[in-house]
């Protein structure tokens, strides 16, 4: 039996796996100690639990447990990596390279550094959403201290050429950070194979709890030094002070273990469901466009623009399905998605995009329901769309003169 509403926004957050909740529960009441209490069993238990979590997260990404620094989430991890490197390596240089489609946690951190005398290059992306390696190489200069490029994009699910970027960074002796939030736990990610020096990850994107994340910080070849951004008791090898979120870390660790052991099966199942959704949409509708590379994409991710219908009215028609839209109307800024605009999509197509994120509990029945519902709603909205009518009459909308005075 289909249960409504259907959740298809797994890029935003994921439900906590019941096995994770079960692992966490004793650490709220029974084993509630402070992991930094070194002189009694309550503290020892907590510390042991934290170290188990640390080990499981390290295993998932091929790191050593000592290279995992716990934070409150990936936004903090991004801030710590970028600001921490910028401050620590200021004498070496002041130039950072990133990309226009990064998450705001990276872009806005870089913008703040620009105000403080740093220089930032925002690489453009190609039509498929990936950066050009030649443009990356051309952007590197004597003063470049950091390259920060996300592994998978949160809006379009496109995977950047991380191994190639890692190789270039290594060759030039520049530190490489990646916001790997959307990718870790979903696709294979190994810090040594990818030559990544820092990676931001978050528990709630991989069936763990909210409020806990981590930054992988390489300890060897090279040893990355970070200036702490939060001062206090010197927790996490001095890089991030603050009492550790023990239940959160236990849950994060359990979630990482489950992702590691179930990744192959989950990925195959979700890729098949994602492709089924895409096929059904394409069979039922003309003039729909997948945003970003199909080949280099997270297996559970699909972002589609439905030409000639507006995003918010589209969402209104599928109000028993939880997805997100690139439409301006759903954001406070009134600007359509900067990620889709960076791909070269016109504002009109950015306005009519929907992001589908499938996950561990998505069923085939749900996929079919969502696909059929969209086909019906888009068809109905196009019947009342003046743009669809004009396009069908052969009018080129891009060359039309619109009356926009006063708006």
């Amino acid at each position, binding site marked *: 039996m289909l249960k409504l509403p259907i959740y298809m926004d797994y890029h935003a957050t994921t439900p906590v796996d019941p096995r994770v909740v079960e692992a966490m529960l004793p650490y709220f009441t029974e084993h509630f100690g402070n992991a930094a209490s070194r002189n009694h069993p309550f503290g020892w238990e907590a510390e042991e639990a934290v170290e188990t979590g640390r080990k499981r997260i390290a295993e998932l990404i091929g790191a050593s447990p000592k290279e995992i620094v716990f934070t409150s989430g990936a936004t903090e991890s991004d801030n710590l990596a970028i600001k921490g490197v910028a401050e620590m390596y200021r004498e070496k240089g002041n130039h950072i390279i990133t990309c226009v489609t990064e998450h705001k946690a990276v872009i806005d951190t870089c913008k703040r550094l620009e105000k403080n005398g740093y220089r930032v290059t925002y690489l453009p992306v190609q039509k498929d959403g990936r950066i050009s390696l030649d443009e990356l190489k051309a952007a590197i200069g004597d003063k470049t201290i950091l390259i920060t490029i996300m592994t998978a994009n949160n809006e379009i699910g496109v995977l950047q050429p991380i191994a190639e970027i890692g190789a270039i960074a290594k060759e030039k002796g520049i530190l490489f950070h990646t916001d790997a939030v959307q990718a870790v736990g979903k696709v294979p990610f190994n810090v040594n194979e990818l030559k990544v020096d820092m990676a931001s990850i978050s528990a709630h994107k991989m069936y763990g709890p909210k409020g806990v994340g981590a930054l992988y910080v390489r300890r060897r070849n090279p040893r990355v030094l970070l200036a702490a951004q939060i001062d206090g008791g010197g927790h996490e090898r001095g890089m991030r002070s603050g009492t550790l979120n023990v239940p959160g870390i236990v849950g994060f660790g359990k979630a990482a273990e489950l992702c590691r052991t179930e990744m192959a099966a989950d990925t195959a199942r979700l890729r098949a469901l994602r492709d089924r959704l895409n096929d059904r949409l394409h069979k039922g509708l003309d003039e729909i466009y997948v945003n970003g590379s199909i080949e280099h994409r997270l297996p559970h991710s699909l972002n589609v623009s439905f030409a000639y219908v507006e995003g918010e009215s589209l969402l209104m028609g599928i109000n028993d399905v939880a997805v997100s839209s690139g439409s301006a*109307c759903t954001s406070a800024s009134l600007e359509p998605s900067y990620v889709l605009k960076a791909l070269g999509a016109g504002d009109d197509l950015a306005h009519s995009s929907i992001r589908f994120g499938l996950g561990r509990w998505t069923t085939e029945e749900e996929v079919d329901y969502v696909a059929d519902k969209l086909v019906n709603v888009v068809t109905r909205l196009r019947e009342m769309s003046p743009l669809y009518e004009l396009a069908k009459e052969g009018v080129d909308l891009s060359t039309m003169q619109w009356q926009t005075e*006063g708006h």
Partner: protein
Amino acid sequence: MAYSNKVIDHYENPRNVGSLPKEDPNVGTGLVGAPECGDVMKLQVKVNPETGIIDDAKFKTFGCGSAIASSSLATEWLKGKTVDEALAIKNTDIVTELSLPPVKIHCSVLAEDAIKAAIGDYKKKQSIESKPAAATTLNAG
């Protein structure tokens, strides 16, 4: 976004969706907004030449639920009104009727613009139409 029941009703059961023949001298067409702003409204009125009353009104809208509802409501109100009465419809009337929140007031403004544009187009056609009509009379005479 919480919509009022009236907005939802117009969105789910839009009144007067469709198109009237653009070339008809008694039809006025207004096309306002722009795709990059996320709203485009096409509103048409058909005026009875005998009575000067709007017999029919149709719309097509690309836009959010409030934009669809504003234009749907506008077509309902236009029917049975004279051209001058139609020009008296204010965006604030639409805001009140649909209980539009402040962020959606621009939808009602666009609907008012669409009404004005459609009536303007009709009036323009009539003034052009009356000249060749006069010429025809002369020739016939």
